[in-house]
């Protein structure tokens, strides 16, 4: 398996991760309860639900999520009460208050959902069953391996959770120290054992390259140890150092960060290692074992991209519940109030929590589809887009270097497309060219 060729000129411009299009950077103020009510009323097919638990036992320095320390129980309880209130509001407005209908999927993320107790988690699920009339067909949960207990694992097994994700990041001790997340390898191994004993069918590891002080040797050691634990999925993210946006990252020594060339080498080595270890490429930064539903989705062209990364969830509507959670509807994206206190005020006062958002017109929908295709590493028909020819100039550099193919209006990936996918996607982003906003490096 060859390594990706390095073309720094194609990666010169910082680009979004495109977990949505338009991206969250395009969100504007001025959205509110009425926008949420209108969007929910139009939902006709089963939607997916995302529940945000913005608390962690400990705050890690590298993290760009909207989180706070779990701290006192009363704060968590107040937040859980607010979630209950929001779930009621959303369920009553879904499909214009028609009969409750089942949900496609339910995902819990954060933060760390296991910052709450197993009992509180089960009660939260019970609220969802009651409010939505859902039988909870497919549940996935993000977990912090630190503080993950056999009680949690047993509970997840009893519920029949389909998919969990462990925040592993790196197994190199000295790198863990530098990012403020110390979790010995044994912690991860015990967690995986507990999950296997509970018969959880699909486990994901989130891993990172480009971390402070991390060498290619560190990365390969981490990948080697991780792949021996045989998680069904591995997501290999590049660490995005944007301390202007995330104050906690200021604790990280920037002089220690790998440069662009080294980051590329790490991404390339990581991909080659995982493919050799039997994983299949899923989108530009995920990998999965062939029997996992995510690998099957990638191979059958059913892969989707959303705020949780790559997914095999086919629902067109994702309803985000909780502070800062983002909802995706065909014609509008909405984000909840980020501040937990103001979020509680809103929903306990009977108002949906949306405060920011962006509308999507037909042109946006086509661009979103093309961008999703590119990131999912599948062919895409550009002719759907009015004025698509304008992007061809930009694509030429990629085609000439054989990291993409263009046959008429059909843009197709090659085996070397993955690291360049985001840089190609940006050519179809009508919001991007004028913006000077800071994004992470593409690799």
């Amino acid at each position, binding site marked *: 398996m060859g390594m990706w060729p390095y073309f720094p000129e194609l990666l010169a411009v910082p680009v979004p991760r495109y977990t949505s299009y338009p991206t969250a950077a395009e969100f504007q103020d001025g959205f509110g309860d009425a926008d949420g009510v209108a969007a929910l009323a139009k939902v006709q097919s089963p939607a997916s639900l995302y529940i945000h638990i913005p608390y962690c036992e400990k705050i890690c320095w590298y993290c760009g999520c909207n989180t706070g320390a779990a701290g006192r129980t009363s704060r968590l309880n107040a937040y859980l009460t607010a979630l209950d209130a929001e779930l009621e509001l959303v369920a009553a407005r879904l499909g214009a208050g028609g009969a409750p209908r089942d949900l496609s999927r339910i995902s819990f993320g954060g933060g760390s959902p296991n910052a709450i107790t197993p*009992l509180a988690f089960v009660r939260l699920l019970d609220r969802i069953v009651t409010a939505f009339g859902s039988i909870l067909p497919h549940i996935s949960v993000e977990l912090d391996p630190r503080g993950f207990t056999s009680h949690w694992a047993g509970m997840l097994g*009893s519920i029949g959770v389909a998919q969990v994700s462990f925040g592993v990041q790196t197994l190199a001790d000295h790198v863990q120290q530098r990012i403020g997340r110390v979790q010995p390898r044994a912690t991860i191994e015990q967690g995986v054992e507990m999950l296997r004993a509970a018969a959880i069918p699909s486990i994901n590891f989130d891993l990172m390259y480009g971390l402070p002080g991390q060498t290619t040797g560190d990365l390969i050691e981490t990948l080697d140890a991780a792949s021996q634990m045989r998680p069904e999925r591995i997501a290999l993210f590049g660490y995005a150092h944007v301390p202007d946006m995330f104050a906690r990252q200021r604790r990280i020594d920037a002089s220690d960060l790998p440069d662009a060339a080294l980051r590329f080498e790490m991404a390339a080595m990581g991909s080659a290692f995982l493919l050799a270890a039997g994983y299949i490429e899923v989108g530009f930064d995920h990998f999965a074992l062939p029997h996992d539903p995510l690998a099957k989705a990638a191979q059958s062209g059913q892969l989707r991209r959303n705020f949780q990364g790559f997914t095999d969830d086919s629902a067109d509507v994702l309803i985000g519940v909780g502070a800062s959670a983002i909802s995706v509807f065909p014609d509008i994206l909405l984000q909840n109030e980020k501040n937990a206190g103001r979020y509680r005020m809103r929903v306990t006062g009977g108002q949906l929590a949306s405060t920011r958002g962006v509308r999507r017109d037909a042109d946006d929908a086509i661009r979103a589809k093309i961008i999703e295709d590119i990131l999912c590493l599948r062919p895409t028909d550009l002719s759907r887009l009015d004025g698509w020819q304008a992007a061809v100039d930009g694509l030429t550099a990629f085609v000439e270097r054989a990291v993409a193919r263009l046959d008429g209006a059909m843009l197709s990936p090659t085996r070397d497309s993955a690291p360049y996918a985001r840089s190609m996607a940006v050519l179809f982003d009508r919001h991007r060219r004028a913006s000077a906003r800071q994004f992470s490096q593409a690799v």
Partner: protein
Amino acid sequence: MSIACDTCVVRNRAICSVLDTDELVALNRIGRTRTISAGQTLMWEGEDSALVANVLDGVLKLSTGTEDGREQIVGIVYPADFIGRPFGARAQQTVTALTEARVCVFARGDFDAFAREHPALEHKLLQRTLTELDRARHWMLLLGRKSAMEKMASFLLEMSERLVQNGCTPDAGPLDRFTLPFGRQQIADILGLTIETVSRLLTKLKNDGVIDLPSRREVAILQRDILHHRAG
């Protein structure tokens, strides 16, 4: 030791079965035993917190009011069940007796705090909450069944499993003969069917030899596997 716990008929099956005598006395101080008649909604006067309860006797329904004023029944509870899904003044759900019922009621905050200090009860509370979740999912599955016959057959099977009397053998298996705790109109309301449909379906099951109806309230399951098949 309170008399209530000494003579409790669900003592060996209720969530509090893990507590010793002293602990039961302590638990009794934060709870109240209430008797309510059929049709009455369970409340706790002067208390505005969410409530939880142990069912000692009788059958009750949990329901939520939808915004357009309709009632959505989200579960049925039977003797020895723990109602951990919060109800009362500050919760969305109400608990209403379908038959005369006796319950031990607690403020949820008090019960949770007590459980935190008694690990065996806390463990049992998690197990009971998981059981409730499982039943809630089954209930939604039952209500989501397409045909009226599937709903009716599922409901009869559920009752034969849940109406198992207390006693020394908690795992005696489902009942082949039981008395319906409610009338045909109530069954119709629970399942979202008309009373005519309920009567017609019961008659059809009887004529097909799947069940027998020895009296107005009695049901005997003659061919459980066929009933399962009709439940979809």
